[in-house]
């Protein structure tokens, strides 16, 4: 049995096969800032926005999956999460920890999986939203002693909402990608 070079199973991906993208400095700074701005401003008119949607999380996942570099992903998540913490009045670090984990996970997953299609993006976003909520719940309740109530129904509904929005948002943000 002979195998040609092109018959290598496509499920196996390596650093040579996946595309690694980078972003310009304005996009790297501007997109997370814009996400934070929208996240802080829209709830003034639509209070449910803050309950079900987390734009900084979607941006963290996108940058993590596109760069496919765990170090870059975790630092991106940490910075965006800490910035989100600074807008609230709770101790700084709860969102930071949660988004650091998500950034690391998204970039690590981006190395191993093809996350360019809509279905994969939807599932990845749904999963990472639940991871983010679990980490946040644990830290907020365990360390900060905040009163938190875990609800699977709300968590899954919010995860679906974020995954739906994220799928469209990622395609919009794909335009800012630059090949390395």
């Amino acid at each position, binding site marked *: 049995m002979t195998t040609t070079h092109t018959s290598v199973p496509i499920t196996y991906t390596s650093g040579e096969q996946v595309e690694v993208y980078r972003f310009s400095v304005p996009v790297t700074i501007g997109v997370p800032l814009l996400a934070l701005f929208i996240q802080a*401003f829209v709830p*003034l008119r639509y209070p449910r926005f803050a309950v079900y949607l987390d734009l900084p999380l979607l941006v963290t996942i996108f940058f993590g999956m596109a760069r496919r570099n765990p170090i870059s992903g975790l630092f991106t998540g940490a910075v965006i999460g800490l910035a989100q913490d600074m807008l609230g009045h709770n101790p700084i670090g709860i969102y930071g920890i949660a988004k650091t984990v998500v950034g690391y996970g998204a970039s690590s997953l981006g190395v191993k999986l093809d996350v360019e299609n809509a279905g994969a993006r939807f599932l990845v976003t749904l999963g990472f939203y639940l991871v983010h909520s679990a980490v946040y719940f644990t830290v907020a309740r365990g360390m900060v002693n905040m009163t938190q109530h875990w609800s699977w129904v709300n968590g899954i509904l919010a995860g679906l909402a974020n995954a739906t929005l994220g799928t469209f948002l990622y395609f919009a943000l794909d335009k800012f990608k630059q090949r390395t």
Partner: protein
Amino acid sequence: MESVLGRYRNLIILVGVLFLQVLGLAVQVKRGPNDAQDTRLIRIWMVGAISPFERGLVWIKNSGSDIWHNYFYLRGVRAENRQLKEQIEQMRLEEVRLSEDAAQAHRLQNLLAFKEQFIAKTVAAQVIGSSGSDLSRVIYIDKGEDAGLQRDMAVITADGIVGKILVVYPSVSQVLLINDQSSGVGVILEKSRLQGVLRGTANGEVVLERVMSDEQVQNGETVLTSGGDQIFPKGLPVGTVSKVAMGKDLFLNIKVKPSSDLSRLEEVLVLVEKQERQPAAEAATHVRAADILAQRLPSVPDKPADASAATSGAAGPTSAGNNAAKPAPRAPSAATNSVAQAKNPVQAQSAQTQPAQPKPAQTKVVQTKPDQTRPDQTTTQPITADQPKTDPSKTDQPKMNQPKIAQPKPAQPPSDQPKLPTKPATPPQTNPQPASDDDNPH
């Protein structure tokens, strides 16, 4: 060793970053709830980066809305204006009625040496942003240290309380809403006078704590601030009781619906200055409901002095005849008051302000109206009883206004208005000086 570090480099960095954040979090938790001041420098960077955009967007939105609503979309403004004017009339009548009660309450408080907190100064501010998280219910307003704002100042709207200022930046302030779970407000129930602590919950509801389960609390009861927290003055509306249930530890679980719509705040007021003083007992009610109603009646146009004198002489007999035909002429009393005031205004004034004059309700309007009417209340009365010293011969001028004040009203007040003694048997409009003959010794 190097190969191990290289192999697990990403994981080690992840653990290191997480460890640093956990450490920072632990330090903040240990320092307590005032960590917002300790992390002020870090937070101000983020607020400084976001707030200019929020402020700009709010400005654009408000400008566009103003242009549209003030210059283009004016449909129904006239009808609304008319409706508002009617509402003002109703409220003025209500105010007169309530001022009596308030004056009485102030007198009693004065006797008991009570002290009240009064709102001395407020600063209006625009809501420009939020935390963006349902776990941190704070908003940002566009006023800060530059406008004299300080930490722990109360933030309210016309509907009720909103929260308190948590962090103050140079041009922006962070306001902790009353539905945040770290918030606490001292409140009192309006009817049952039960006191408790208002707290927010994790899901954004507002509950009243520390009310014993054996107390009776009704749905719909109004909740007011008690003043016990030293932030909100006493008596500000907080909300209404929406649900009462048994809680744990012998306390009731009372849900409160806030008076202010905390999810749609646009403009708020910050109480920057409070005064604690004894309420001043007002001497007497300056304006009566009857006076307000009388202002709405058509008035007699002003006449020259000569014409007035001629009319006085001509109208005298008619007036006397009319008065003779009436069962209870009130002109002598009014005339006596006017003359007495002309001779000694101070004594006359003090005599008029004596509240305990057992007179029929119907005669009260005519007897007191000329003395209590002020020039700024009726613009068609250039000469009033307050001006007798300049020209004593015009002391009968106020009586010219008596028919105007006590004439039968062409427009009856609405049925929901309080019953007022405004329909005495009075001289008609065509008899402007019914009491002139009584004043005139000739």
